[in-house]
Protein backbone atom coordinates (compact mmCIF):
# COMPACT_ATOMS: atom_id res chain seq x y z
CA UNK A 1 0.00 0.00 0.00
CA UNK A 2 1.17 3.47 -0.78
CA UNK A 3 2.04 5.99 1.87
CA UNK A 4 -0.14 9.07 1.54
CA UNK A 5 -0.22 12.49 3.10
CA UNK A 6 -2.50 11.33 5.92
CA UNK A 7 0.11 8.86 7.18
CA UNK A 8 2.64 11.62 7.72
CA UNK A 9 0.02 13.89 9.25
CA UNK A 10 -0.87 11.17 11.76
CA UNK A 11 2.79 10.77 12.71
CA UNK A 12 3.06 14.54 13.14
CA UNK A 13 -0.10 14.64 15.22
CA UNK A 14 1.13 11.86 17.50
CA UNK A 15 4.48 13.59 17.91
CA UNK A 16 2.69 16.80 18.80
CA UNK A 17 0.41 15.05 21.28
CA UNK A 18 3.28 13.26 23.01
CA UNK A 19 5.20 16.51 23.20
CA UNK A 20 2.23 18.30 24.70
CA UNK A 21 1.83 15.51 27.26
CA UNK A 22 5.50 15.90 28.13
CA UNK A 23 5.20 19.65 28.56
CA UNK A 24 2.05 19.29 30.67
CA UNK A 25 3.24 16.53 32.96
CA UNK A 26 6.96 17.03 33.52
CA UNK A 27 8.22 18.90 36.54
CA UNK A 28 11.82 18.84 35.44
CA UNK A 29 12.61 21.95 33.38
CA UNK A 30 14.89 20.01 31.04
CA UNK A 31 12.05 17.54 30.44
CA UNK A 32 9.72 20.39 29.56
CA UNK A 33 12.25 21.65 27.01
CA UNK A 34 12.42 18.14 25.50
CA UNK A 35 8.65 18.24 25.11
CA UNK A 36 8.92 21.55 23.26
CA UNK A 37 11.41 19.94 20.90
CA UNK A 38 8.93 17.13 20.21
CA UNK A 39 6.16 19.63 19.46
CA UNK A 40 8.37 21.52 17.04
CA UNK A 41 9.30 18.26 15.34
CA UNK A 42 5.66 17.33 14.89
CA UNK A 43 5.03 20.69 13.24
CA UNK A 44 8.08 20.17 11.05
CA UNK A 45 6.87 16.78 9.84
CA UNK A 46 3.65 18.48 8.83
CA UNK A 47 5.49 21.26 6.99
CA UNK A 48 7.60 18.86 4.98
CA UNK A 49 4.73 16.47 4.24
CA UNK A 50 2.44 19.25 3.05
CA UNK A 51 5.17 20.66 0.84
CA UNK A 52 5.74 17.27 -0.73
CA UNK A 53 2.11 16.31 -1.29
CA UNK A 54 0.30 19.64 -1.68
CA UNK A 55 2.71 22.47 -2.36
CA UNK A 56 5.14 20.98 -4.80
CA UNK A 57 7.68 23.78 -4.44
CA UNK A 58 10.29 24.39 -1.82
CA UNK A 59 8.61 26.83 0.60
CA UNK A 60 7.69 24.24 3.21
CA UNK A 61 11.27 23.04 3.35
CA UNK A 62 12.41 26.63 3.94
CA UNK A 63 10.00 26.93 6.83
CA UNK A 64 11.15 23.60 8.23
CA UNK A 65 14.68 25.00 8.19
CA UNK A 66 13.54 28.12 10.02
CA UNK A 67 11.80 25.97 12.61
CA UNK A 68 15.01 24.00 13.12
CA UNK A 69 17.00 27.22 13.52
CA UNK A 70 14.56 28.69 16.03
CA UNK A 71 14.38 25.40 17.94
CA UNK A 72 18.13 25.42 18.31
CA UNK A 73 18.03 29.02 19.55
CA UNK A 74 15.21 28.17 21.98
CA UNK A 75 17.11 25.16 23.30
CA UNK A 76 20.28 27.19 23.86
CA UNK A 77 18.53 30.01 25.73
CA UNK A 78 16.20 27.66 27.62
CA UNK A 79 18.98 25.44 28.84
CA UNK A 80 21.06 28.47 29.81
CA UNK A 81 18.11 29.67 31.89
CA UNK A 82 17.79 26.21 33.45
CA UNK A 83 21.48 26.24 34.36
CA UNK A 84 21.19 29.71 35.88
CA UNK A 85 18.15 28.55 37.86
CA UNK A 86 20.06 25.54 39.08
CA UNK A 87 22.95 27.72 40.19
CA UNK A 88 20.71 29.98 42.24
CA UNK A 89 18.27 27.51 43.78
CA UNK A 90 19.87 24.04 43.30
CA UNK A 91 16.55 22.84 41.94
CA UNK A 92 15.00 22.77 38.49
CA UNK A 93 11.47 21.82 39.47
CA UNK A 94 9.30 24.17 37.45
CA UNK A 95 6.71 24.38 40.24
CA UNK A 96 9.23 25.73 42.72
CA UNK A 97 10.78 28.25 40.34
CA UNK A 98 9.02 31.33 41.68
CA UNK A 99 11.95 33.61 42.40
CA UNK A 100 10.43 36.49 40.46
CA UNK A 101 7.07 36.31 42.17
CA UNK A 102 7.69 38.71 45.03
Amino acid at each position, binding site marked *: *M*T*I*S*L*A*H*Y*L*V*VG*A*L*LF*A*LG*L*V*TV*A*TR*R*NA*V*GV*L*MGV*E*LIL*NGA*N*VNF*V*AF*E*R*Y*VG*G*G*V*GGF*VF*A*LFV*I*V*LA*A*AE*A*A*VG*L*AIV*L*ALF*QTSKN*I*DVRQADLLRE
Partner: protein
Amino acid sequence: MPPRLRRLVAWAAASVVVVLFVAVLGVVAIAPAAESAPGAGQGQGQGGLVAVLFYVLSLLTLLGAALVAFVRNIVYSALGLLASLLGAGSLYVLLSADFVAIAQLLVYVGGVMVLVLFAVLLTNKITEVNVSNSSFGLFGGLLLLVAMVPVLVAVAVLTPWRTSVPGPLAPTTEALGDALLTHWLLPFEVASLVLLATLIGAVIIARKELKAD
Protein backbone atom coordinates in the same frame (compact mmCIF):
# COMPACT_ATOMS: atom_id res chain seq x y z
CA MET B 1 11.15 -4.62 43.12
CA PRO B 2 7.39 -3.93 43.02
CA PRO B 3 7.76 -0.22 42.16
CA ARG B 4 10.24 -1.00 39.43
CA LEU B 5 8.01 -3.76 38.12
CA ARG B 6 5.00 -1.49 38.23
CA ARG B 7 6.90 1.21 36.38
CA LEU B 8 7.99 -1.27 33.75
CA VAL B 9 4.47 -2.56 33.28
CA ALA B 10 3.02 0.93 33.02
CA TRP B 11 5.65 1.94 30.53
CA ALA B 12 5.12 -1.15 28.41
CA ALA B 13 1.37 -0.59 28.51
CA ALA B 14 1.79 2.99 27.33
CA SER B 15 3.96 1.99 24.40
CA VAL B 16 1.63 -0.86 23.50
CA VAL B 17 -1.31 1.54 23.53
CA VAL B 18 0.46 3.94 21.18
CA VAL B 19 1.65 1.21 18.84
CA LEU B 20 -1.76 -0.45 18.74
CA PHE B 21 -3.33 2.92 18.10
CA VAL B 22 -1.09 3.53 15.10
CA ALA B 23 -1.65 0.01 13.80
CA VAL B 24 -5.42 0.13 14.16
CA LEU B 25 -5.54 3.55 12.56
CA GLY B 26 -3.37 2.40 9.70
CA VAL B 27 -5.54 -0.62 9.00
CA VAL B 28 -9.01 0.67 9.74
CA ALA B 29 -9.10 4.39 9.18
CA ILE B 30 -6.25 5.40 6.93
CA ALA B 31 -6.16 2.57 4.42
CA PRO B 32 -9.64 3.18 2.93
CA ALA B 33 -9.06 6.93 2.93
CA ALA B 34 -5.69 6.51 1.26
CA GLU B 35 -7.08 4.23 -1.42
CA SER B 36 -9.89 6.61 -2.23
CA ALA B 37 -7.58 9.63 -2.28
CA PRO B 38 -6.77 10.96 -5.76
CA GLY B 39 -3.40 9.93 -7.09
CA ALA B 40 -2.69 7.57 -4.25
CA GLY B 41 -2.04 4.61 -6.50
CA GLN B 42 0.85 6.18 -8.35
CA GLY B 43 3.92 5.88 -6.19
CA GLN B 44 7.47 5.62 -7.39
CA GLY B 45 7.48 1.95 -8.28
CA GLN B 46 8.85 0.54 -5.03
CA GLY B 47 5.85 1.50 -2.93
CA GLY B 48 6.19 -1.57 -0.74
CA LEU B 49 9.73 -0.80 0.34
CA VAL B 50 8.83 2.82 1.03
CA ALA B 51 5.85 1.69 3.08
CA VAL B 52 7.95 -0.67 5.19
CA LEU B 53 10.57 2.03 5.71
CA PHE B 54 7.89 4.51 6.65
CA TYR B 55 6.36 2.21 9.25
CA VAL B 56 9.70 1.30 10.79
CA LEU B 57 10.88 4.89 10.96
CA SER B 58 7.63 6.27 12.32
CA LEU B 59 7.63 3.47 14.92
CA LEU B 60 11.13 4.56 15.94
CA THR B 61 10.03 8.18 16.09
CA LEU B 62 6.91 7.53 18.13
CA LEU B 63 8.57 5.07 20.50
CA GLY B 64 11.25 7.63 21.20
CA ALA B 65 8.61 10.26 21.79
CA ALA B 66 6.74 7.91 24.16
CA LEU B 67 9.99 7.39 26.02
CA VAL B 68 10.36 11.15 26.39
CA ALA B 69 6.81 11.48 27.64
CA PHE B 70 6.48 8.57 30.04
CA VAL B 71 9.81 7.38 31.40
CA ARG B 72 10.80 8.70 34.80
CA ASN B 73 14.56 8.60 34.39
CA ILE B 74 15.45 11.71 32.43
CA VAL B 75 18.60 10.20 30.93
CA TYR B 76 16.40 7.62 29.21
CA SER B 77 14.15 10.48 28.15
CA ALA B 78 17.10 12.21 26.52
CA LEU B 79 18.05 9.03 24.65
CA GLY B 80 14.43 8.61 23.55
CA LEU B 81 14.50 12.16 22.24
CA LEU B 82 17.61 11.23 20.29
CA ALA B 83 15.81 8.26 18.70
CA SER B 84 12.78 10.37 17.95
CA LEU B 85 14.79 13.12 16.26
CA LEU B 86 16.71 10.54 14.22
CA GLY B 87 13.47 8.92 13.09
CA ALA B 88 11.91 12.24 12.12
CA GLY B 89 15.04 13.17 10.17
CA SER B 90 14.86 9.89 8.28
CA LEU B 91 11.20 10.52 7.50
CA TYR B 92 12.29 13.76 5.81
CA VAL B 93 14.45 11.68 3.48
CA LEU B 94 11.38 9.68 2.46
CA LEU B 95 9.66 13.00 1.77
CA SER B 96 12.41 14.12 -0.62
CA ALA B 97 13.66 16.81 1.77
CA ASP B 98 17.29 15.83 1.80
CA PHE B 99 18.73 19.14 2.94
CA VAL B 100 16.22 19.44 5.78
CA ALA B 101 17.13 15.91 6.87
CA ILE B 102 20.83 16.75 6.97
CA ALA B 103 20.12 19.99 8.83
CA GLN B 104 18.02 18.02 11.31
CA LEU B 105 20.88 15.60 11.86
CA LEU B 106 23.47 18.34 12.28
CA VAL B 107 21.46 20.78 14.36
CA TYR B 108 19.26 18.52 16.46
CA VAL B 109 21.20 15.32 16.87
CA GLY B 110 24.57 17.03 16.86
CA GLY B 111 23.80 20.24 18.68
CA VAL B 112 20.57 20.27 20.62
CA MET B 113 20.98 16.74 21.95
CA VAL B 114 24.45 17.54 23.26
CA LEU B 115 23.03 20.64 24.95
CA VAL B 116 20.20 18.63 26.50
CA LEU B 117 22.54 15.92 27.74
CA PHE B 118 24.87 18.55 29.19
CA ALA B 119 21.95 20.16 31.00
CA VAL B 120 20.75 16.80 32.30
CA LEU B 121 24.16 15.85 33.61
CA LEU B 122 24.90 19.29 35.07
CA THR B 123 21.62 19.68 36.92
CA ASN B 124 20.94 16.23 38.35
CA LYS B 125 22.46 13.62 40.49
CA ILE B 126 22.03 10.65 38.22
CA THR B 127 21.62 8.20 41.05
CA GLU B 128 18.53 9.92 42.41
CA VAL B 129 16.19 8.80 39.71
CA ASN B 130 13.04 9.70 41.55
CA VAL B 131 14.16 13.23 42.26
CA SER B 132 15.56 13.82 38.84
CA ASN B 133 12.33 13.47 36.96
CA SER B 134 9.24 13.25 39.08
CA SER B 135 6.31 13.20 36.77
CA PHE B 136 2.82 14.55 37.05
CA GLY B 137 1.48 11.05 36.75
CA LEU B 138 1.10 8.48 34.05
CA PHE B 139 -2.65 8.57 34.31
CA GLY B 140 -2.97 12.29 33.63
CA GLY B 141 -0.64 12.06 30.68
CA LEU B 142 -2.47 9.12 29.15
CA LEU B 143 -5.76 10.89 29.70
CA LEU B 144 -4.52 13.94 27.85
CA LEU B 145 -3.23 11.71 25.07
CA VAL B 146 -6.50 9.83 24.73
CA ALA B 147 -8.43 13.08 24.72
CA MET B 148 -6.32 14.80 22.10
CA VAL B 149 -5.03 12.22 19.65
CA PRO B 150 -8.36 11.12 18.13
CA VAL B 151 -9.27 14.71 17.30
CA LEU B 152 -5.98 15.46 15.59
CA VAL B 153 -5.94 12.15 13.75
CA ALA B 154 -9.54 12.53 12.62
CA VAL B 155 -8.77 15.98 11.23
CA ALA B 156 -5.68 14.67 9.45
CA VAL B 157 -7.43 11.66 7.94
CA LEU B 158 -10.92 12.91 7.17
CA THR B 159 -10.08 16.29 5.64
CA PRO B 160 -10.11 16.07 1.82
CA TRP B 161 -6.65 17.55 1.18
CA ARG B 162 -6.06 18.72 -2.37
CA THR B 163 -3.03 16.56 -2.87
CA SER B 164 -1.12 16.43 -6.09
CA VAL B 165 0.87 13.45 -7.27
CA PRO B 166 4.38 13.78 -5.84
CA GLY B 167 7.19 13.50 -8.32
CA PRO B 168 10.16 11.18 -7.94
CA LEU B 169 12.68 11.85 -5.17
CA ALA B 170 14.98 14.63 -6.31
CA PRO B 171 17.68 16.75 -4.69
CA THR B 172 16.32 20.01 -3.36
CA THR B 173 19.42 21.79 -2.11
CA GLU B 174 19.88 24.02 -5.16
CA ALA B 175 16.27 25.17 -5.22
CA LEU B 176 16.41 25.68 -1.46
CA GLY B 177 19.46 27.91 -1.71
CA ASP B 178 17.87 29.93 -4.50
CA ALA B 179 14.68 30.39 -2.49
CA LEU B 180 16.55 31.35 0.68
CA LEU B 181 18.61 34.02 -1.04
CA THR B 182 15.87 35.49 -3.22
CA HIS B 183 12.31 35.04 -2.01
CA TRP B 184 13.00 34.44 1.69
CA LEU B 185 15.98 36.74 2.06
CA LEU B 186 14.46 38.88 4.80
CA PRO B 187 13.45 35.96 7.08
CA PHE B 188 16.89 34.47 6.45
CA GLU B 189 18.63 37.61 7.68
CA VAL B 190 16.26 37.95 10.63
CA ALA B 191 17.05 34.35 11.57
CA SER B 192 20.75 35.17 11.55
CA LEU B 193 20.07 38.12 13.86
CA VAL B 194 18.07 35.86 16.16
CA LEU B 195 20.95 33.42 16.28
CA LEU B 196 23.38 36.22 17.15
CA ALA B 197 21.11 37.46 19.94
CA THR B 198 20.75 33.88 21.19
CA LEU B 199 24.49 33.39 21.24
CA ILE B 200 25.09 36.52 23.31
CA GLY B 201 22.05 35.95 25.52
CA ALA B 202 22.89 32.36 26.36
CA VAL B 203 26.44 33.28 27.31
CA ILE B 204 25.28 36.17 29.48
CA ILE B 205 22.56 34.16 31.22
CA ALA B 206 24.66 31.10 31.93
CA ARG B 207 27.76 32.97 33.12
CA LYS B 208 28.37 32.97 36.84
CA GLU B 209 31.05 35.62 37.16
CA LEU B 210 28.88 38.42 35.83
CA LYS B 211 27.69 39.47 39.29
CA ALA B 212 31.21 39.81 40.58
CA ASP B 213 32.01 42.75 38.29
